[in-house]
Every structure is written in C-alpha cells, then in structure tokens.
C-alpha cells in the first residue's frame, strides 16, 4: 500500500489488514520499489499523485523490469475521461478516492485469483490483420508487432477467443479481471480505447466494434 499521506496510508492499510491481507506500507515511490525488489508481494495498491517518483513512474518501472504484479492505482481526480494515469503504463485497475474499502478488497481478491492461474490455451489466433500468439504473448498487426500491456493483452485474447461473439462489459470484467461480482467501473471501456488506439495506428481498419447498449465484439468485417 503506497500513499504519501500518512492518514490514508494508516487507514487503508488497517482496513486491508482487518480484511485478511498481510500489508506493507510505503510513503514514496522509491520506498515502494525498494520493498518490491527485496521481498515478493502479491498485489500493489498505489497512489497516483505523489511527490518525486509518482504512481505512473512506479508502474512504468515495474513493468519495464518484467514484474507482473497486479496493480490497482488510486486516483484522487475524478477523471471522467478515458485516460486514467497509470492504466496506460500497465496498471490493472483503478479506484477514485475516496473509495469503498469493500470494493478494493473484492477487486484485489479477484486480481490475485486471476494472477495465480493463466488458463489461456497456447496457440495462435488470427482475426483479419491480427495475429495473437498466446504462448509468447505477442500481437502482430499485418505482421508488425504491437506492444501491449499485460491487461491489454488479456483483454484482446479474450475477445479473440470469442471472435464474432458480442461480449458485455460485465462478461469482459469477469473474464479478464475476474470480477464475478457487481462492480461500478468503466475500466473495460478504458482498456478497449487503449487497445483501439494501438491497433488502429497508421489508419488500420477497426477490428474491435462497439455494439451499443451491449458490449464489444472482435471481428474482421465492419
């Protein structure tokens, strides 16, 4: 649990402890990185806005080091737009301060469950210009490799496995994040927008289509 404010740190860490987690706290990004490199941890709750090394920098550093630890970022701004600092850098989910402790606990449990078993079949899937190599976790568009974060890859893989099938947001949250409970978040839409931005670069045609009022579908033709 990383936050520069002592009150938030104390209260959230205490709440998590009472919910059955073994919690280490850090006041700065540097301290967090030091803790993570010294001992093994299962999940990270990270404040985005911190002096010096902020949350986004910590996520970027961890992912660059190949650390796949599930990360939930805490954002103090109620951003309605689709760019939530930290998610693009590779964080898995976000919560806006102030948040419900039960919500954080439930999501952390789900993220931990998801992290422990990767049940994707090891093969190569092709949809239109897309080639998804699930064994090596690589994605190619027209033969060119596209860099995706872990969560972006998982989302794309789920869409590809169900190519042509419309998946609701709720179903995506369940399949990709393991949220099999009622959850009030637009994190799926945010990641869809990230995926589209990366896959549609250089004016490539849209492959992830929105089915209004229902959800999303991956298919070649419009």
């Amino acid at each position: 649990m990383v936050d520069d404010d002592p009150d938030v740190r104390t209260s959230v860490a205490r709440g998590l402890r009472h919910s059955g987690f073994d919690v280490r706290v850090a006041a700065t990004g540097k301290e967090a990185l030091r803790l993570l490199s010294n001992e093994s941890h299962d999940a990270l709750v990270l404040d985005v806005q911190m002096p010096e090394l902020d949350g986004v920098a910590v996520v970027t550093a961890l992912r660059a080091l190949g650390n796949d630890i599930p990360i939930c970022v805490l954002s103090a701004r109620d951003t309605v737009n689709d760019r939530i600092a930290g998610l693009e850098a590779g964080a898995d989910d976000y919560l806006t301060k102030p948040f419900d402790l039960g919500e954080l606990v439930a999501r952390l449990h789900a993220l931990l469950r998801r992290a422990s078993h990767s049940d994707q079949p090891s093969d190569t899937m092709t949809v239109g210009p897309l080639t998804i190599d699930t064994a090596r976790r690589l994605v190619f568009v027209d033969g060119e490799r596209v860099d995706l974060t872990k969560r972006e890859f998982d989302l794309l893989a789920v869409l590809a496995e169900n190519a042509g099938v419309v998946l609701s947001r709720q179903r995506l949250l369940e399949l990709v994040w393991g949220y099999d409970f009622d959850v009030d978040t637009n994190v799926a839409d945010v990641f869809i927008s990230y995926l589209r931005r990366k896959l549609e670069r250089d004016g490539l045609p849209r492959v992830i289509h929105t089915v209004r009022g229902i959800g999303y579908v991956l298919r070649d033709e419009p």
Partner: protein
Amino acid sequence: MRVPRFLRSASLRTRVAIASAAAASAVVAVFTILTSVVLANNDAAQLDRRLDSIIDASMYPDQLEDPHRGVLTTGRSKSTGQVVFQRGLQLPPLPLGTATVEVNGVGYRVRTITVDQQGGLLMSVGIRADSVLLNRARIPLYTAVGVATVLIAGGLGWLLAGPAIRPLRRLTEHTKRLGKNTERMPEVRGVREAEDLSEAMTEMLSRLAAAQQATTNSLQAAQDFAANAAHELRTPLTAMRADLDTLRIHDLPAEERAEVVQDLSRAQRRVEAIITALGQLASGQLAQAEDRELIDVTDMLDRVARENMRAGGVEIVVEAADDLGAIWGWPGGLRLAVDNLVRNAVTHAHATQIVLTARRQEHTMTIVVDDNGRGLPEDEHRTVLGRFSRGSNAAPGGSGLGLALVAQQAVLHGGRIELSNGPLGGLRATLTLSTSPEPPADSD
C-alpha cells in the same frame, strides 16, 4: 512618443485647407488664362472697330448713311442750337463730354466738343457702341462657363480631398479588420487627428487586453485553487471512508475500535482545518482597504504568546519595545499570520521555546519568530510557502495552507515572509510589514 508639434503630421484641417486652396488655385489659374485670352481678343476687336470707323470716315464717306457702320457727326451752333452740319444720322443735342445715346435703335457712344469755327460750334461725334463682351447673347455662354467652373472646382476638391483624408480611411479599415485576425492596431501616419485617434484606440485595446488577461488569470487561479482544494479534501476523506468501512465490515475489539475512531476524528479535524483555512484565504483575497485599522504590534504579540502558552509545553517570550507603535493593517489577518507561525513551531517542529521579536525600521516593521524546534530542510524554506505544500517532517493533520496564509497576509501588508535557520536551533520566520499608512498597491 511625443514629437514637437511643428514636426508632427499636419492636422486634417490643414490638409483640407491645403486641398481646397489647391483646387481654388487651379480654377483661378484656368479662369485667368481664359479671361486674358478673351480680353485680348476683345481688345483686338475694339481696335478693329476703330480702324473700321477711321477707314469709313476717311475713305468711304458715301457709306456713312449705313447706320450699322460709320461715324456720325453732328455740328450745332453754340448760340442757337441749330444743326449746322451733319454727317450720317443726326445725333440729339448733348452737353459737353461723353454720353451713350440711342439713334434709330442703335447705341452710339458720343463725344461732344467745342469747335471754334463759324462763331463757335458744339460738335458731337458718335461711333457705334454695341459691346463685344457685354452682350445679352453671351449670357448662356457665361452661365455655362460658370457652371463648368463650379463643376471643375468640385471635381478637383473631390480628387484632392481623397489623399487628404486617406489616413482616416485607413484607420477605418484597420478598425474593421480588428478582432478578425489581429488584436493589434497598425500605426496610422499622415493626419494628426487620425494619429491621435489611432493612439487612443491602441491604448484602449491594450487596456481591454490587459483587463481580459487579468480576468483569465484570476479564473485560471480560481480553477487551480478549486482543483487543489478538492484534491486536498479528498485525501482525508479517503482515510475517513476506509476507517468507516473498517468499522462497518469488521467487529473490532474495543481497543482497536478506539484507535480507528481517534484517527477518524483527526481526519475530520483536518477537513475542518482545510475548510477554515480556505475560508481565511478567500477572505484575505477579498480584503478591503477600508477595513484596515491601526494595530498595536507589541500588544498583538503579547496576546498571541499568552494564548499559545495556555495549552502548556511551550515557553513564548516577546521581545518588543513598548513604544514600538502601531501600524496600519487588517488586525484579524495579521494576528492569524503570527498565530500560524507560532502554531507551526509548536505542532510541526515540536518547539519548547519560542521568541517573538518586533523591530521598527524606517519604512518597515519586522516580526521575527524564532524556535528551538527540529527546523526544516533548507531546500524547503521556499516551497512550504506554497498552497497545499507541507514540510517533509510536518505532523499529520495539517491543512497545507498555514504558511500560504502567512505569505498572503505578508503581501497584503506590503511585505514578505522569509524562512531561515534560526539561532535557537530551529526555524526563524521573518515577517516584514510596511509601516506606510497607505494601503500597498495590489500585488496579487
């Protein structure tokens, strides 16, 4: 930039005067030439008429009966008035001198003289006097010439006035273009009135732009402030929410429960402190010059010391002369500033000893707050003065606005706040205030 009056561009009045003078001169010149030609021709015609008369008189006396030509001569006896001789038509009796008479419907100019012949004669000699110039038949011609002159003068005036008022027209065009692609007024030269107008408009535009900029800036500041305030309030609210959820979800033992409740009330106090400080900042921003009062600084420092010592644990000494005098300011605001400095020393630096010193210089009053607390890293001496910034070793629960309030009050009182390492081992805060009775110029 003011240039001497005689070097400056001509006024519009001068230009119009010059233009009309030029038009008039042109018309007069043309008219003079025309008139000279006509008069010269007329002179020649008159001379020809005289030659005709002389030739008629000397060469063809027989043609004298033709009333349209020739010279009429009538001689009368001076004593009787009887016609003695007559050539051509008879002229009426006339006194000596020159006269114009009509004979048979034709005008003659007649001179009557005395001739010493045949016992004294009055001899009248007349020649035709129908004028070449003064002729009814020529009236339409003259009228036409007059009208043409007026038209020419008008046309010339029109043409010459164009350049005279060109700068005004340029000014109009610039003004029309204004705001479409430019906010700047290009300089217009050539006519003093237009230059003055252009300068006035440029000044007005820059005043408007400055006012607009000020509005934009304060709007931006208000937005930043609101965003910061929202963020600052969200932080303790996050802690409170987590604590409330912990209490709600888990059945905690009494001891842990008490700890959570204690944290909850501290976070609640923090929210309160932030809201109070925000209110104080806003009222500082709205401070009115007419609310200023004379403040007895020594008295104020005594009160701050007394009230902060009441809680115990700290000794506060005031070192200020009794005759320090008063300064003009906002008593509540200044009191708040000194109070915040003292409270910071107690709360964040854990000081046990604080010395308040006040000294009066020529134009300033200096209030120094020294403490023996744990001080502040030197690189934070400036940054902690900003809004919502806290020292790295600050105690939890602060609003992050205390020193920002001090800085605001310092500026309001025409001075500044500076932090440095103090002689007692802790921090020294130096609050400088203006002693001028005039309110300081708005520097925010």
